[in-house]
């Protein structure tokens, strides 16, 4: 029964949003991380979502599915170089490399992820109600 598929679809979305929240947490936790070279510096991560196509259907347009994380992309925004020769992580020239996390962007991302998560919870609750009503039909 397709109504049960809704649970799979919505839970896949909740999982994907959870991964997104995890990357946000990781980025915000590393917002003050420094490194001694540009290569070692922390770079902001963000998941890229992809639709899961339903294998059981032959009709390309009818294929409905959930969502999964295709990859976790790493930001290539420039990394700030700071001159602080007394820093224990400073390189030979006296520079430390910060990271390219943008906390404002991360906060917005976090809100978006939590809203999307909520709307999927709502979908699951409503679908559960519909199923219960259907099961109790005629009683």
């Amino acid at each position, binding site marked *: 029964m397709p109504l049960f598929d*809704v649970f799979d679809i919505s839970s896949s979305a909740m999982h994907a949003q959870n991964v997104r929240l995890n990357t946000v947490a990781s980025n915000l936790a590393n917002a003050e991380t420094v490194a001694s070279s540009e290569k070692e510096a922390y770079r902001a991560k963000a998941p890229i979502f992809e639709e899961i196509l339903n294998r059981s259907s032959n009709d390309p347009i009818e294929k409905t599915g*959930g969502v999964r994380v295709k990859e976790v992309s790493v930001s290539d925004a420039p990394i700030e170089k700071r001159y602080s020769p007394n820093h224990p992580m400073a390189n030979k020239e006296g520079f430390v490399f910060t990271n390219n996390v943008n906390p404002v962007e991360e906060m917005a991302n976090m809100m978006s992820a939590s809203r999307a998560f909520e*709307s999927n919870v709502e979908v699951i609750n409503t679908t559960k109600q519909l199923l219960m009503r259907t099961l109790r039909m005629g009683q």
Partner: protein
Amino acid sequence: MSNILDNYIGIHAQALQVRTKKTELLAGNLANADTPGYKAKDVDFRSALKMASSDRMTTTDSRHFELGGAGGGDQVQFRIPTQPSVDGNTVESHVEQGEFMDNAMRYQATVQFLGGKFKSLKEAFAPVR
């Protein structure tokens, strides 16, 4: 016998099938609200119900092509967004949420109708007291 029962239940059984399909599509849209390039889908209820309730040809040979079932095939269409986003995603969460709620209410209405039908059938079969 099954024909009598089918006639008695009427269009509600097919309506429930189309509503279920619509629920699934809308859940898929909401799940993919942040997927780049995803196009929101929906079924046109009227034409899907017409398709589901009309006498369809049945496949009698393995080489026959399957015709779209309830809410499948031609009835699934892409939604036209009011504000398309840069990443090619056409899901507008508020539109989908509204549609989902609307669909859920109508599903419950159909279940109510069907329930009523079964209730009166049971009453008709019950011994006279």
